[in-house]
């Protein structure tokens, strides 16, 4: 068992799991690896609640036909069940242009997608309703909150095909999302937060004002943290296409100080606002994020 557990934990490494092609498989391996590591099940009880009927369409499976109703009405209806949900969880993933950056095996967006998929998988396995939102300058996708497996597959499908978009509009996009989510729940923001920090914090606070719990995963590439380039390069801004030619070793010291100051400010202001802030490098294993989520989930219970 121990060997099996270690074998599963390797899928918490984004570099390993990114080599797999199927997003559903990736999400399951991440979560199972994580569960194997913590040695107890995070899943809650399972129950299904009838939601509605709908007409049977020819070619569908007959397993879901309500024969009793057929007997009364002489029509074929399919029983639609709604899973029992404990929490409404919104996973908001930034797919702006800057998220397409990655100096290693994966990009920030791929990391964000894997993390989003793993969280969604874990949440739905916990019977929590999950809604996925993708945005760049605007909202690209916003799914309803559901806890059924089919919804999970839809989410994983969407995340498997996500690609970097154009510029960043975190403030406006998150503001829009904050207006649309009516019921209180957990908001998970996965982004590089490459925007004006004050605006970002202000937008995140709007979720708090509306009664949401907010969990922020700040994704940064190691190169973004220390600018560890060994030779002269020409940097091209992935969103604005602006370029700077420089020799990074002259800049790295001051650059690192600036980035550290920026993340520190985000962390402090998030903390002050009751927002859980987690800085994740692309080298960070997924268990850090999943533990953060579970801790948050535990506190909400």
């Amino acid at each position: 068992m121990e060997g099996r557990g270690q074998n599963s934990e390797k899928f918490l490494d984004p570099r390993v799991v990114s080599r797999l092609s199927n997003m559903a498989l990736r999400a399951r391996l991440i979560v199972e690896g994580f569960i194997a590591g913590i040695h107890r099940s995070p899943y809650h009880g399972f129950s299904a609640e009838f939601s509605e009927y709908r007409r049977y369409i020819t070619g569908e499976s007959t397993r879901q036909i309500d024969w009793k109703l057929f007997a009364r009405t002489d029509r074929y209806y399919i029983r639609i069940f709604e899973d029992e949900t404990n929490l409404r969880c919104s996973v908001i993933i930034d797919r702006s242009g800057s998220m397409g950056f990655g100096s290693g095996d994966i990009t920030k967006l791929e990391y964000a997608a894997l993390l989003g998929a793993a969280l969604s998988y874990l949440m739905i396995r916990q019977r929590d309703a999950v809604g996925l939102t993708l945005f760049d300058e605007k909202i690209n996708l916003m799914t309803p909150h559901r806890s059924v497996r089919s919804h999970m597959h839809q989410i994983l499908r969407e995340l498997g095909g996500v690609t970097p978009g154009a510029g960043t509009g975190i403030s406006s996009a998150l503001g829009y999302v904050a207006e649309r989510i009516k019921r209180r729940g957990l908001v998970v923001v996965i982004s590089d937060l490459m925007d004006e920090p004050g605006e970002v914090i202000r937008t995140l606070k709007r979720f708090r004002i509306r009664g949401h719990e907010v969990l922020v995963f700040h994704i940064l590439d190691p190169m973004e943290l220390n600018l560890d380039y060994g030779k002269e390069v020409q940097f091209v801004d992935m969103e604005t296409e602006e370029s700077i030619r420089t020799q990074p070793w002259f800049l790295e010291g001051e650059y690192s100080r600036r980035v550290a100051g920026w993340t520190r400010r985000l962390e402090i202001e998030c903390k002050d606002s009751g927002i859980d802030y987690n800085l994740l490098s692309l080298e960070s294993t997924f268990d850090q994020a999943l533990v953060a989520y579970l801790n948050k989930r535990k506190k909400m219970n």
Partner: protein
Amino acid sequence: MNFLNPAFLISLAAVALPLIVHFFSRRRVPRVRFSSLAFLRPSQRRSMKRINFRRWLLLALRIAAVALVALAFSRPVIEGALVPGSAPTASCIILDRSYSMGLESERGTPLERGRGIAGEIISGAGNSDRVILSVLDTGVEEIFDMEGRGREFALEALEGIEPSWKPADLGKGLLEGARTLRKSGYGVRQLYLISDFRAGTDRNAGTPVDSAEAGPGIGGKTATYLIPIHESVSGNVALIDIRRPGVAIHAGEVVTIGATLLNSSGRAAETVPVSISVEGERLINRELRLGPGERRYQEFSFPVEEPGWLRGEIELGDDRLRYDNRRLFVIHVIEKIDVLLVGEGQYYLEKALSPGGAEGDIRLRVSGPERVTSSDIRDSDAVVLGGGPELWDEDLEVLREYLEGGGGAVIFVRENLVETAAALSRHSPAIELERRERTLEDPGTVPEILHPFTREEISSLSRVRFVAEPVVKGIPSPAVAMRYKDRSPFMWQERIGEGRAVFIVCRPAVAGGGLVLSPYFLPIVQQAVFSVAGGGGAGGEFLVGKRPRWRINDKNRPAIYFQPYGEERPGVRLDYRFAGDELIAAPVDRPGYLNVISDNRTVRRAAVNPDCSLESRLDYIQPEVLADSMGIDRAKIIEEGEGAGERINEARYGREITGWVIIAALIIFIIELMVAQGAARRRSEDVGKS
């Protein structure tokens, strides 16, 4: 700076490589799509200055490294004036052949070593170069000009160079060499002076030479190389001067020869054997000890019996420098003197010159008061003027010519001869007649004219009374042999041209006082005649390289022969010319004897000796001092010795610095690497610390 492979200078174009790499590599900088430049922009502005400085520094270092490598291929040389084969060069080699270059040593004489150095310079000349080889002593003699001829001929000519008997005039050598080069018309000129740098005739060494005299050749386009061949000498004793009798010697008399010896060593005393020989017969052997640096005058006396022009020599024992160990001399020993007595009333003079009418050492002829003619005095060894009357102007002219041509005269300054005496004397004395008694002053020594007299005899002359003798004024003291007690001259001697005259202030008559009747009259008169007879013909001395010259009365085309010392063969006939009454012969280049023959008899004989007054001291002139005195700014001094040829070529073509250039290129390359990798290393250190 010059280059041994100047064609490779084209490789300097390679400096374009770092430029191309620098600018092109900027275009090939990898593009990195980065999430955001927001945090880069502020830092980048401040860092750009440092980045640009470092970039240009790297470019400069790379260009320098490439340029140095290219220079290394071109084989740079410094300090040299030539690039072999780049331009035809005129080289003038001045080889000192003065007698000090014959100093013997275990390594060979300086001249032999100098010939070797000159040979290396000649061998190192290019095919299109011109090499002029000249030898130097008191003058410069060009012995070879290699333009258009093979260098083997130059080397052959070099082997034939032997030391001369002359000292060296180093300044003249440099000037002549520079003039020769200037005349050559070559753009690249080199002047080499190979010498032992002994002070010779260059008495002005150490004093600046007028730049106009030096000409534009020295210190200008002409590269000057001074190559001293310095041979240290513990000591050298030289015979630097000789003093022979200034008058003809009578057979049977004792002759005194004086020699000046110099020990040039400042540290050690030297004992040297000295010998005197006359006509091959050794007369005196003596051993002298000279202290360090001592200069000593030593007299040697010996009797001579045989009449004639006798050849003699003083010789020192051999030392390392044999050229200054011997000096030659000639003494004229006469058997009978032909005397012409001119004037009237000279009874006592006749008796004094021909006692009892007998013909002793003097063959007397008496001339009356008639005019003196050339034919009368031509065959006379001396003329005596003792009585009046005054000579006519024409007679005075004849007598003056006779004296200037080497004749002798004894003139009694008395009444009736006052004007004659005043006219013949070079001092134009004022002569006054006084009628009072006077006596002579005791001079305390024996005057040279009266050298056979004893001290006592000279002293007893002061007891003789003189009556009514003239008083003469205006004669310089050194010329006066004896004086009256009133300090006016009694006897003085003058050189008149080649001849001599003795003036005696008294009347050779009883009326003149007690002298005529005293026992001193005859010896005084005869000695006065002996002292002037022969005049310059007493035996002269000339220096090697100088033109012998005499005033000779007889212009019947004499023949002059030179017999080199040590050679028994008949002498070499010399060319000569007359300048007025002066006969000027061609100079001779070695010691020996000169013989002037006229009417089949010897009328003059002289010795020829080297000038050892200066060079025999073996004083070393620092080449730097010589260069300074000649106004040569950039003279290069190359010490003789092992590897001299290599050093000469090094000075000539410069010192190759390819190795240093390569080292400099490597250092710059390493610095470039350090600068280029410096930031990366610093970054690694930062990572390590963190």
